[in-house]
């Protein structure tokens, strides 16, 4: 009997009001999707109908661009990722109007305390019946430091060290209680089995945490952990600790290299390569024909002013003021950036490879935000996704839309059925937890004998 073909994992990355800097200006776009809870309910329920493994939210603990705005840059009033519903509160609320879909939110290790994050995500996991994931990041945007007492941003290496220790504390706290610790014995007055409660007693460089956590063990063992760093340190941390790795990959060869590299590192940590699911982002622009799809893309680009695109690129330019360079000249040499190292490198490589002008790089960056843009028919998009799956370039994809809800509805209504028809995507959920959907084992409690 032949094995069923490998199955794709799908995440719905709700980057509201849209990944494309000007997407929200589309006639069909609903820009209020940034702050309107009912719009998120609709999107989450659409994703669940489409059997997505999870929905996902990025996060920034600041108004993006606020540092520049504070210096008087009024033209940034055209940026649109300004306000949002805080993602952990949002996904907790969304867990009450969904039943099977996973819910993953970002929370930074840079401006939080591990005891608080451990409590919050584990509680969310209980509320949702075991469907929660935590995307562990270090804060990468210059604006955030100013809201937490830092005039300049915390340096890259130090941020990662803190994040690694942060993870250790959180994972340790999630094991505070064994699965069957609570007896609730009314007759004897014994609420819990004292042998099944464990103190962490962590003493490290950044944190000193006694524990135990005042939340019982998760319905799925512990929340799923996702990560997105692509640097050397990032890959090593992911191989050791992540269940899901989000990444930005635009070329098949690079994606295969990344996939093999991260999976290859897992053995060092006693983990199976299957224990990590690698999911690059893709932004679909879907048309009934290839040319209709291209028209849709060009229309979006036509709404994007060059100077706004340049502003967005400035965030990756390592502090260099790009306005002093000719728009139709080459991409100037960029100094190293303290924020998104990998994202910057991708752009530099792309510019070099395709001989792009500064204008073109800026416009491309605003359209894609680092991820691969797929412009075509539903069949062609499914072809591309299937190719990456079978060639070990991805275990699945994070779907990011240029505006909402149209393109996301299109993907769910047109591309998902095509994937299902090919037998590479589920038609119903396997189980009730996020680990069930992702095909991940329930981790054992480190203290259980």
């Amino acid at each position, binding site marked *: 009997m032949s094995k069923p073909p490998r199955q794709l994992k799908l995440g719905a990355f709700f980057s509201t009001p849209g990944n494309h800097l000007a997407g929200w200006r589309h006639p069909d776009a609903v820009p209020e999707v940034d702050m309107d809870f009912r719009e998120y309910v609709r999107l989450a329920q659409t994703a669940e109908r489409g059997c997505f493994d999870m929905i996902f939210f990025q996060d920034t603990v600041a108004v993006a661009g606020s540092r520049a705005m504070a210096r008087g840059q009024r033209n940034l009033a055209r940026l649109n990722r300004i306000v949002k519903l805080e993602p952990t*509160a949002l996904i907790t609320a969304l867990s009450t109007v969904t039943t099977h879909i996973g819910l993953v939110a970002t929370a930074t290790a840079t401006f939080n305390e591990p005891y608080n994050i451990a409590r919050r995500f584990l509680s969310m996991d209980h509320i949702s019946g075991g469907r929660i994931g935590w995307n562990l990041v270090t804060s990468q945007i210059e604006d955030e430091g100013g809201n937490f007492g830092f005039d300049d941003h915390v340096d890259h290496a130090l941020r990662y060290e803190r994040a690694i220790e942060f993870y250790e504390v959180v994972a340790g706290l999630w094991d505070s209680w064994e699965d069957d610790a609570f007896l609730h014995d009314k007759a004897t*007055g014994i609420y819990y089995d004292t042998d099944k409660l464990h103190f962490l007693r962590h003493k490290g460089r950044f944190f000193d945490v006694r524990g135990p956590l005042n939340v019982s063990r998760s319905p799925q063992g512990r929340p799923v952990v996702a990560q997105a760093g692509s640097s050397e340190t990032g890959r090593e941390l992911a191989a050791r600790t992540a269940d899901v790795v989000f990444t930005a990959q635009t070329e098949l060869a690079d994606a295969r290299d990344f996939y093999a590299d991260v999976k290859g590192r897992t053995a060092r940590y006693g983990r199976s390569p299957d224990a990590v699911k690698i999911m690059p982002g893709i932004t679909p622009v879907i048309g009934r024909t290839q040319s209709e799809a291209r028209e849709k893309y060009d229309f979006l680009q036509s709404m994007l002013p060059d100077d706004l695109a340049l502003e967005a690129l400035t965030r990756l330019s390592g502090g260099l003021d790009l306005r002093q360079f000719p728009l139709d000249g080459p991409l100037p040499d960029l100094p190293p950036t303290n924020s998104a190292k990998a994202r910057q490198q991708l752009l530099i490589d792309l510019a070099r490879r395709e001989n792009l002008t500064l204008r073109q790089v800026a416009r491309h960056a605003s359209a894609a935000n680092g991820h691969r843009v797929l412009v075509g028919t539903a069949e062609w998009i499914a072809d591309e996704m299937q190719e990456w799956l079978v060639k070990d370039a991805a275990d699945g994809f994070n779907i990011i839309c240029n505006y909402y809800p149209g393109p996301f509805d299109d993907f769910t209504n047109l591309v998902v059925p095509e994937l299902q028809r090919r037998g590479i995507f589920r038609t119903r959920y396997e189980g009730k937890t996020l680990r069930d959907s992702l095909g991940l084992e329930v981790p054992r409690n480190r203290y259980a004998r």
Partner: protein
Amino acid sequence: MKPQLHFGAFLYTPGTHSAGWRHPDAEPRTDMHFPYYVEMTRTAERGKLDTIFLQDTAAIGGSGGLDGGSPYRPSQGRQVHLEPVSLIAALAAVTSHIGLISTATTTYNEPYNIARRFATIDHISGGRAGWNLVTSQVEDEAGNFGLDRHVDHAKRYARAIEFYDVVAGLWDSWEADAFLRDKASGIWFDFDKMHFLHHRGEHFSVRGPLNVSRTPQGRPVVAQAGSSDIGRDLAARSADLVFTAQVTVAEGRSFSTDLRDRAERYGRGRDDIKILPGLMPIVGRTDAEARERFEQLQGLIDDSLAMRALARLTGELDITQFPIDGPLPPLPPSNAAKARQQLIVELARKENLTIRQVARYLGTAQGHRVLHGSAKTIADSMEEWLIAGACDGFNLLFPWFPGPLNDFVDLVVPELQRRGIFRTEYEGRTLRENLGVPVPVNRYVT
């Protein structure tokens, strides 16, 4: 119209009574099982209560002692609970009118994060969120945040005051009509309606703006519970709702008058603050039945557990060294709950209580007033307090869940409604409307 009562339902699962969870009908899983919270909140909403209220501690009670070698006392019910800010976010989506107030400490949080989360929940709920501002009182928490000992009382309050200022300032970051989202011009927001906080203080340096827009009720309701002098002052300046522990009408009147006088000095109206003392109602069909229910609960109390609760209020003094059936000795100042300590000292003196009796008293309702009786008896007392100006209503404590909450909603609420001193329908869709407290003006709008 007659003055109206306001109620909070304090969901201190599995029960405020130290032995409540052992009641035959109690559901101990009300601590961690979300569907119970949905059911209880909807019951409270059915009963038209103003709000639910959730306490919080970022530690397991007693963990510091356990780590230091104290014996385990596994009969304490409140060990684990759902992190309450996440919980109210979830409850926001499954309720429509009831307020959702959660505690979040100023001692172990950053103001930007707190401002975001509560503003977000205010949006999700349509204007029903509230933040109970506290300083952490429990020694155990320090050990989870890198400190050997708990931050002392005065320093905690200094941080809390600045914390509040930052949060309130961040909640004004955006004027109500700042967001244009104008497709034609490509302008997302009106730059002049965005405001940077630029706060630089002893504890915090916060530029802002907040990345959440102005909330449906202007900003979340702020509740507080400190009764010390510095606590009252902070409440008078910044709270919409004050939780307190007062056991007699006279004490209630004295506290209310003092707080409202202070509020006026801060330029606020006397009615801008609602004051809710704690009250544990134990309802029976008759007074006798209610007394029986009370005695049944007291019979379940574990004295050694009650003594531990008392020990938390006795500062450096080891209360276990004194004869348990002897009088309460003089107590040194406590770094924990100053006002609560004062309350029990006075009560012990007035009623000649032994240490055992004081401990049991604490183990019943944590120092709050207990009232057992028929619906009529309870309603009589509530009406008396209301008319005497001793309070605006009560924060209702329950010995276990869910039964006593159901009893209150099914038996006492209709009696109060019949007397015309409690609503039959919610006044509005926001917590401010239902509490009858003003919508704050944005400080940047002239």
